[in-house]
Every structure is written in C-alpha cells, then in structure tokens.
C-alpha cells in the first residue's frame, strides 16, 4: 500500500509545530511592536507555513504523485489572478 510505503511522519510533532506557530502568531499580533506592514507580512508568512504543514503532512500531499498535487495547485493561480486584478481597481 502506497501510503504505508513511505515513512510516516510523526503527527504529534507536527501538531506541536502547529501549536507553537499559532502561539507565535498571536504573540506577534498582540505583544510585539512590529510596524504594521511588517507584521502583516510575518503573519501571512506564518499562516502559509502552517497551511503547508497541514497540506503536506496531514493531507499527505508530500507523498502523492505530481498528477494529484496538480489538482490542488491549479486553482491557486486563478485565485491570485482574480484578487490581484480586482485590487488594482483601486489604483
């Protein structure tokens, strides 16, 4: 069975990882004095990091063939195009 063929990641470690990142996020948002623009960048970076952890390990995309990953990747550029274009409206 393919999913057991790979070494199974330590799910508890990833859970810890996610937990710590969440704590860092909340702390950065409320306790730090980072300028707003930087803070936003940092928070988004952390969110994407967490989302990737979930997608790669919990949804085991890391261990799937590219054919399958592609399905999840296709909508992302479309979403970006929609949002970025429409925001340009304001400039």
């Amino acid at each position, binding site marked *: *069975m*393919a*999913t057991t063929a790979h070494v199974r990641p330590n799910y508890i470690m990833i859970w810890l990882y996610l937990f710590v990142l969440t704590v860092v996020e909340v702390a950065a948002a409320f306790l730090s004095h980072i300028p707003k623009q930087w803070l936003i960048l940092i928070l988004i970076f952390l969110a994407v990091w967490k989302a990737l952890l979930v997608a790669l390990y919990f949804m085991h995309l890391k261990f799937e063939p590219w054919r399958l990953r592609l399905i999840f990747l*296709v*909508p992302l550029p*479309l979403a970006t195009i*929609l949002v970025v274009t*429409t925001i340009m*409206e304001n400039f």
Partner: protein
Amino acid sequence: MTSVAHARPQAHDGAHHAPMSFWQKYIFSTDHKIIGIQFLFVSLFFLLVGGLLAIQIRWQVGFPGTPMPLAGLLPESMAVGGVILPEYYIQLVTMHGTFMVFFAIMPLLVGVYANFLIPLKLGTHDMAFPRINMWSFWLALLAGMIMLAGFFVPDGAARAGWTMYAPLSARPDLSGATLAQQLWCVSIVVLGLSSVMGSLNYITTVINHRAPGMTWFRMPLSVWALFITAILGVLALPVLQGAAIMLLFDQTIGTHFFDPVAGGQALLWQHLFWFFGHPEVYILILPAMGMVSDIVANGSRKPIFGYHSMVFAIIGIAFLGWIVWGHHMFMSGMNPTLGSTFMVSTLLIAVPSAIKVFNWMGTMWRGNLRFHVPMLNAIGFVSMFTIGGLSGIFMAATPVDIPIHDTYFIVAHIHYVLFGGSLFALFAAIPYWYPKMFGRLMSEPLGKIHFWLTFITYNLVFFPMHVIGMGGQMRRLYDPTIYDFLKPQQPLNEFISIAAFALFAVQFLFAFNFIWSLWKGKKAPQNPWEDNGLEWTLSNPAPHGNWEKVPNVYRGPYEFSSPESPNSDFLPQHVKLPTDRDPVPAPPPAGH
C-alpha cells in the same frame, strides 16, 4: 461527502443487477444514461420556456404599445390590456437569459452529453460516483423549479438582467422585486452545487475509468472537450455561488458587500460574476465544439485534421478564458490599464479558435461528405460560430466596444455564438445520439427541413441585430421608439420580430420530430452512422451497465477511410487488426 465516503467496495466487475421497479429505473436512477435522458427532457422544457419568453420580448420590441395576442392570460402586474409593462419586460429579458444559459444550454450540453457520452465513449460501466450523479440531476431540477417560481410570486420575477448587476439586484426598493431576486440567488447556489457534483464526477471518470487501451490521446474530442469543460465548471461555478451568496446576504441579512454607501463595491459583483461568466460561456461552447468535431469527422469520412492541435486548442481556449473576464467591463469604470490587458488576452482567443475552425475545414477538405442531419447542423455550427466569434473581435477591440457595448450588436453576438453555436451543435448531437438513447432514429427528411428553415430564419432574426446595434439601440430597452435616433430603425425591428416568430414556429418541427420518433421513428441499426466510437459496439438503446466486458481499445476514434481497412471506410476503436497488440493490464490503484 457521505456519498463519496461510504460506497462499499466489492471486488467484481461487469453488469449484473436484480430487476428494478419503474421508480428505481427511470426516476431515482443512478444509471448515467437515464440521468442524461432525464436532463434532456428537463432542459428541453426549459428551452421551450426560454423560447416563450423570447417571443414576448420580440413582440414588445417589434410592436411596442400594441396588445400582444394571448396577453389576456397574463395578470395585471405583467400586462395591462394586453400591453406588456416595462417591469414585466425586464423580467422577460432577465429570465430569458437566465433560463437559456443556466437551464437550457448548459444542462443540454453538460448535463445530457457529459453524462451520456463520457462512460459510453470511454468504455466504462457508469460514472465514478453514480449517486452523486443522481443528486446532480435532482438539484438541477430543483434549481430550475426555484427559478421558475419567480414568475409566480407576488412581485414578479427577477429583473436585473441575467448578469444581476448590483446594486440594482441587491436593493428591492430600487428594482421593485424582493422575493424573486432572492429566489434567483438561491436557485443559482443550488445549480452551482449540482454543477460541481456533476463536474467532479466527469473529471474523476475521465481520469480513472477509461477502458483498457483508451489513452489520453485516443479519447474522442467530445470527451476531451467535456473533460476540460468539467474543469472549468468545477472551478468557475463556486465563484458564482460565493457571489450569489453575498448578494443574497445583501438582500436578506443586511450585509453591504455591493452597497457603496456602506463601503461596499458595485464593481466587485461584476468582477466576480464575469470571472465566472467568461469561463461559463466557454462551458457553453467547448462541448459543442467537441461533439461537432466527432460529427464532422464522421460526416467527412476522414480523420479529424490535426487531432493534437485540436486538443491543445481546447485547453488553450479554456486557459485563456480565465484571464479575459474584464472585456465585459470595458465601459464599467474599471481601471483603463486593466482594459488594455484584457483586450490583448481577449484578442488572443481568436488564435486557438482559428485552429479549431480551420481544422474543421481541413477535415472536410478532400473528404467524402455525407449530409446527414447531424452533419448539416454541424456545418451550420461551423459557419455560424465563425460569425459570432468574429463579431467578438469588434467588441474585444476596446475603442470599437465604446459605441457597441450594451447594444443589440452584443445581442447579435450572443445569439450567434449561443444559438448559431451551441444550439446548432445540439441540433446535430440530439439526432446523432438519439438511437443510442431511444433505439430509434429521428426522421431525416423532417430534420433536413428543420435545419434549412432554422438556418434561414435564424439568420434573418439575428443578422440584422448587428445593424440595429450599430445604430445604437441599447439592450434591455422596453421601447426603442422613445428615442428619436432609434425611430428610423423600427421597421427593421418589426422585421426581426416577424422572423423570430417564424424561427420559434419552426422549432416545433424539431419538437414534433423528437417526440414522434420516440414511438414511431425507424428502428436504428446497431451503428447507423458507421462510426468508430465505443458506444456503437452496444445495442440501441444502450443496456443498463453498458458492457458485460469492456472492449479493448486499439486506436483513436477518427480512423475513417484508413488504408488498413480496405473494405469499409471506417475502423472502429475496438477492432483488433493482426498488427495490434493488446493493452497491458496495469496494477490496480495503490492500497486497494
């Protein structure tokens, strides 16, 4: 989710089943063919509804202020003394566009033919998820009923155009309709759900359930087109759903997404709608193109010209379709720089479209053309779609779009691509696969008369609309004679209307042919069109479960007049020549 998750595996193959009651077999059926046929009847009904609305539109535009025959049947809120009221007119236009696009053409192409053809042409027993498929049909029907209900609620049907531009659509005090506007949104959300369920089924089936030897590049172009269409559907409809939900919330629970007074953006609706809307118009044309490709190759008795580039053209059109939506918004106050980029991407769509048109011609070139009814309508498609596509170039060039945007020029474009394109393709596809559905052939002579009369009246209706539009006549205009500069055109409007009534009447030839042939049509031989597709290896109508054992596939679907088959001018996909080797069975998917 549950239905995905809980189907139980059983390691067996082939078609076997206990006898089923009428209800199981024809109503709550999970058989892809029955579902396709259900879609066929329902969407033909909605086509009729759309047509009935269209002739009322034409009556009003051609003869404003004149009492309409039979208008006495309408309540006072729609027509007084037989004269259509302005508020009813905009309901007519809105619901005509909505029904035609969402409940007639889209289900006819996708609901009917993706369901019916994909498993038959790929060689599998059914869709990947038959029960989800059944739900897809019932939700579509429900959505249609909700939409239709709009006409029967006290303040009348939705009335902001099929594009539902906010804030008009969001504010009952400005549009004059409360419940119907909400019904429109609810209906679209349900329809979106149905469409997503259908599409994910088609995608999974195409990827995972092909017959042995049916490689990607041996798939018929119809299946390719339906596959790419399903991808568009799965990605585009949720955006519309999201937008419709926001609109619904604006109408009901007091949110302000599209209300500029509270910080919302009116253009946001347009961006979301057209981000869905343009892929949607390709949902309405790609399956038509695919089926026409099959029929043109068959009618020409020649392999399709440039199969691979035809595939890549489908993919190219679908891809470009995502980055052109702004061409509907050139005059909307959108940032003009965006207008420039959207113009260029829009113009580029002419390139893959050119490949398609010229390759169809290349297919006919030096062929041995058989003019059966499907072929005639397919040729009608090629010539009429070209006109519609070329008028798109005028609108894509932004400066030229200034005078013609939101005029009848656009209306002409719409109908050339949607009627001349999609509907002609359906007039080709319906008789072509009719035997596979019902075991009988539709009448050829009647079909030919219908084709010619439609072809002529159709052009008489819609070609002059270009002229009317150049003259400046706006769309969705209750009474053009209000404007001095439009008055001189009124005779032409009358002419269009009369032609439209004729066009409408002619469609009853088709309806008659369709219904009459159900019982009285000639019994179809097994392969009436001498085609290569796997579906013709089955009896007519195709049996439940399709094949006892799925045939192996040895070649592409367009091997007509091949030197390898000297005795006939076609060579079906499943026929094994001495030189052919059997496909190697691959291991089943990992883990199961």
